[in-house]
């Protein structure tokens, strides 16, 4: 079991928005939607573009490049051009801080 990693204060991520989080060689996208937090791989599976510049609408993140869309709850690719699912990671809020269970 990997450890929980502190990302940032919850207040650093706006509601229905996304923030980039880098750790070692890896980069993640951390979301806050309807009071809950979620985490996925940071790069779109279609082109290597960071999702932190994308648009979050409800539980969908849209890649800034080509409209590749993913459900942030399970990483499901929601149709062309993205056809490879996004990896997701457990995320939680504790004492006002966001944590994710990163690789």
């Amino acid at each position, binding site marked *: 079991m990997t450890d929980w990693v502190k990302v940032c204060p919850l207040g650093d991520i706006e509601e*229905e928005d996304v923030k980039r989080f880098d750790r070692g060689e890896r980069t993640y996208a951390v979301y806050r939607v309807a009071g809950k937090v979620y985490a996925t791989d940071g790069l779109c599976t279609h082109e290597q573009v960071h999702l932190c*510049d*994308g*648009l979050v609408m409800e539980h969908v993140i*849209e890649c*800034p*490049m*080509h*409209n590749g869309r993913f459900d942030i709850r399970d990483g499901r690719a929601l149709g*062309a*051009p993205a*056809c490879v699912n996004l990896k997701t990671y457990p995320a939680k809020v504790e004492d006002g801080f966001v944590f994710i269970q990163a690789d």
Partner: protein
Amino acid sequence: MNLALPMVIVGAGHVGGRAAQALREFGWMGEILLVGGERHLPYERPPLSKALLTGERDPASCALRPREAYAAERITHIVERVVAIDAPAREIALSGGRRIGYHALLLATGGHLRRLAIPGGDLHGVLGLRTLDDAAALAPRLVPGAKILVIGGGFIGLEVAASARKRGCEVSLIEAADRLMGRAVPASISERVRSLHQDRGARLRLRTTPMEIAPLGDGRLAIAFSDGSELAASTVVVGVGIDPATELAQSASLAVNRGIAVNAELATSQPDIFAAGDVAEFPSVLSGQPICQESWHNAETQARTAARNMLGGHEAHTALPWLWSDQYDHVLQIGGEPALGSTIVTRAWGGSEIRFHLDGKGELVGVSGFGAMASMAREFKLARMLVDRRLRPRADQLSDTSVPLKSLLRAA
């Protein structure tokens, strides 16, 4: 539905590949033949003028879908040219002589590069950029210090200029008009793009046309311009647009204007023959006037509409135009049809700006934007959503960067 005859797609580009995929997705069980003259499986074109030239990506990464997908979905790729359509007999003829009947036919033949009609316009070292092979021929010429002349200040020319600068080339770009990208973008954005390229070290010259290209004997080319000046370059890249590849449709007596004329369902003037992508001239969703759209988004969306209708559907193509051009770390985007607007509202922040184009009734008909990639992407997506919904937001809110665009979408 008669499964004995195959669905035939002419043109194995982005549209062809995506339409084949969609035909399976929508339930077609019969054969699917994807016929094209290029040896490559369908690929996406946006990287050709950018990451492929800078070496950040390789050709394999441009594939629209992995090779296995075609086998798994029984999509047959035929590398051959289609030389004729016999619409009454519902057949096509291949260059090798074979004739193939079709259940429905999709023409996704794309476009041909316009060439320079000047002396020396076809010399070795004068290149165009449309295909993977074109990009493969150009990339190795973009070595540090190489003198590159780009002819044409449209999207492709500017993207090539940016890629060549990134590779350390000396870049000159000439454009016949008095501004970059012509009427495709507002003058203020054209001006920002000009500044960006000049700041990054490209030499830009407007109101200039090439008159003649001659070999210098040492592998370089001498180019003479309309203003009497001359320049030596190792490579000339011609980016003066494409003409829709309509010859096949014309020879089969399909209605053709600039592109192959189709209705909102992408049907041509002949039964069960459809056209989509760069080659199709279709009615604008906003104005009803016939338009062509040479863009990734048009290929992506029309391929699916065409597939639906090849299967007997009656779905109208309703996606509004959208195109983008990445240059250096900046992006230029156009959504809807800015040309239909009569007033412009500007939303500017940092070095970025979005221009909202509203028609006489105050309805959003288009949006154009330019700025740093990171700050533009999501704002522009929201702007496009406002246009897609034909909203009539208040001008003072559109221009006020303290009012999030997302809130305007919600308020509607």
